[in-house]
């Protein structure tokens, strides 16, 4: 079998698998968030936490819960790292430096999972599984909760409430993420991923000393992909053979990355009572994802760039068992969702391959985006699209029966400005400072790309990196930490305020003059709005980095 045929069949199997679970999984998630009954274990959780599960929250209360929970989580996770030497299974490692613990805590609580630390040489097993991996679950459940709250804003009429954050958080964790992660983790162990609690030092065949690193890897790996987190147990992430030993585990990981963001479009359609709307949104995501996948695959498989041409193929930074096709598929999937796990070195990707990864993040993590974050992100762009359409024909814009007025557009405008401002100001300031050129792992245009990639990844909560950049200075730990924090919480608060304002409205009936938002015309419009917005915002910075490199 040729590489090309194998690569195409892999993509075909992935699409078939996603199509097979789309309806049952999407509808299951809709039931999880609309059901009025609590499981026994959930009642126990609520009782121990002291929350009343049947109290409804308005937008402000819901947002306060999210912010409060995030801040508490950051403090606790910092505490775990700063005190890891007293925890069990610390592997004799010292406490984590202060600003590194801040950066890492923010990183995992915001679902970014940017890694300024090297897992195998910085963290003990308890800090990984009872600290970081816990946030893998909870930050993912927060993302879905926000998406569900926004959908409720569209569904509800003359209502002051968006649901209950604690219930949404608990249900997402217990009914969705935990059971799927368990099954996936067991499959990963069957495929060779480690799940142990000790290291073993031994002599290799040729007489060198080597440590057989243990750890609760499989349990963390499953939720790392399913929750679109991306923080690896080891520094090399999913390129490490103990995280991702074979072509089977690699395929499973790509499937886990994509399955929830894709199926959530079905959840959207089902909760709205308008399934074609869910398919239209999926169509927009599919078009843009396909474009970046094709670009990345073409560039990696044909081996663009001086290094790949010198070697005969773009294998620098890639593992033999994956090759170019499975690496490119992983690159596109991990950056199009806000996962940020890597099975190959992104810094060593061909110029167009690395550029495709950057563009996927710059689109705002919406094709299909992170769990939940992709849905609320693309709905914000859909509001922008109906607004633009409304301007063209001179009608008050509407989306899904809700009037889009100045109040809603204010939230959307602030939302669309937040992340680009963090990326461009952050990268601009960093580039202007002298020490940054020392921190770059590569010179010239590629060094600029490393810095641009870092701020794009942080502010969009992706977490992958052009790893050559040294980001352990206090400057990068603090600025990238703030980019992650602001890039997560400000958009979430804006989405919730918007959702509250939509829920308070009545529902306007569709008339002959209403722009249908479930048809191909709107799919095309939304694709256009996303591409134009991204292009206007980021083209100059892309031109200095990957575009310049691709044209050399």
């Amino acid at each position, binding site marked *: *079998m040729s590489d090309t045929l194998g690569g195409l069949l892999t993509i075909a199997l992935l699409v078939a698998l996603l199509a097979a679970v789309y309806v049952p999984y999407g509808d299951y998630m809709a039931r999880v968030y609309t059901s009025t009954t609590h499981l026994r274990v959930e009642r126990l959780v609520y009782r121990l936490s002291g929350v009343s599960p049947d109290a409804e929250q308005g937008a402000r209360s819901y947002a306060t819960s999210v912010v409060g929970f995030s801040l508490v989580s950051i403090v606790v996770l910092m505490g775990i790292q700063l005190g890891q030497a007293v925890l069990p299974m610390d592997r004799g490692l010292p406490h984590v430096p202060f600003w590194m613990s801040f950066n890492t805590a923010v990183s995992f609580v915001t679902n970014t999972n940017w890694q300024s630390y090297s897992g195998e040489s910085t963290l003990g097993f308890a800090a990984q599984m009872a600290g970081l991996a816990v946030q893998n679950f909870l930050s993912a459940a927060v993302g879905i909760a926000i998406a569900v709250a926004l959908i409720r804003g569209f569904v509800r009429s003359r209502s002051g409430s968006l649901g209950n954050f604690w219930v949404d958080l608990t249900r997402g964790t*217990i009914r969705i993420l935990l059971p799927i992660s368990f099954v996936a983790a067991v499959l990963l162990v069957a495929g060779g991923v480690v799940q142990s609690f000790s290291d073993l030092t031994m002599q290799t065949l040729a007489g060198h000393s080597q440590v057989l690193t243990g750890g*609760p890897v*499989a349990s963390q790996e*499953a939720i790392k992909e399913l929750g679109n987190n991306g923080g690896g147990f080891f520094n090399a992430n999913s390129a490490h053979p103990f995280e991702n*030993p074979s072509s089977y585990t690699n395929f499973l990981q790509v499937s886990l990355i994509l399955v929830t963001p894709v199926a959530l479009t079905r959840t959207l359609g089902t909760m709205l009572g308008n399934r074609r709307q869910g398919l239209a949104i999926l169509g927009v995501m599919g078009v843009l994802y396909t474009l970046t996948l094709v670009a990345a695959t073409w560039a990696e498989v044909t081996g663009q760039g001086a290094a790949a041409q010198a070697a005969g193929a773009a294998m620098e*930074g890639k593992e033999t068992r994956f090759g170019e096709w499975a*690496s490119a598929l992983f690159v596109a999937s991990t950056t199009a969702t806000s996962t940020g796990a890597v099975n190959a070195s992104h810094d060593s990707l061909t110029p167009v391959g690395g550029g495709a990864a950057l563009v996927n993040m710059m689109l705002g993590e919406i094709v299909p985006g992170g769990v939940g974050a992709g849905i609320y992100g693309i709905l914000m762009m859909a509001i922008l699209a109906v607004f633009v359409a409304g301007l063209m024909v001179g009608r008050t814009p509407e989306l899904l029966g809700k009037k889009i007025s100045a109040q809603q557009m204010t939230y959307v405008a602030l939302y669309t400005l937040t992340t680009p401002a963090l990326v461009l100001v952050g990268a601009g300031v960093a580039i202007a400072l002298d020490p940054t050129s020392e921190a770059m792992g590569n010179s010239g245009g590629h060094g600029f790309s490393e810095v641009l990639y870092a701020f794009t990844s942080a502010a969009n909560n992706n977490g992958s990196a052009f*790893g050559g950049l040294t980001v352990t200075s206090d400057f990068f730990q603090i600025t990238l930490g703030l980019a992650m924090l602001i890039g997560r919480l400000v958009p979430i608060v804006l989405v919730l305020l918007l959702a509250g304002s939509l829920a308070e409205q009545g529902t306007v009936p569709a008339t002959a003059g209403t722009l249908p938002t479930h048809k191909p015309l709107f799919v095309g419009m939304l694709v256009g709005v996303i591409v134009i917005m991204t292009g206007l915002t980021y083209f100059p910075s892309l031109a200095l980095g990957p575009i310049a490199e691709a044209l050399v």
Partner: protein
Amino acid sequence: MTHMLTDLSRQSLAGLRLLLVMTVLTGVLYPAAVWAAGQGFGDRADGSPVRVDGQVVGSRLLGQQFEGQEWFMSRPSVNDYDTLASAPSNLGPLSPDLVASIEQRRSEVAAREGVDESEVPADAVTASGSGLDPQVSVAYANLQAPRVARANGLPLGDVEDLIADATTGRGFGFLGEPAVNVLELNVALAAAARGGD
């Protein structure tokens, strides 16, 4: 404002309690359950150790450094197969340093194997994503076969059979790439060389 702050601290307290409950559930019980279930898969959960005469000499999943004419060589690694420092080179696609190392590795491999530089495959001259790649391409293993056979005093055909035994095909026939496990190959090679004494 005071109302908002009171609300925030009240909600944060509830959040702290929920976080502790969830830590027990997802941070302790869940990994323990995966560990228990993982015991059903032999020693895979423990890192797939490879034993020679009862001694662990490595993991079939982790690459090792080999030097000397008698061994099959692994791919270049930026960390010399140090499992406490897994990493790629992170050199960019146009990096002059990377191009120079690729050219240097190419001439070294060609000289070592006694072949033309054009015959050296890409994985022999590039560092992997983890620095711990346990495998090489079938082409790179075959390129090394004549030298290894000579150094161990084995017929070339026997060594080629060992390569075939250590080769993993594509998953389901189409996932990923075929590749040869270097540690397993070298363990089998050492046994064959001992048997031939």
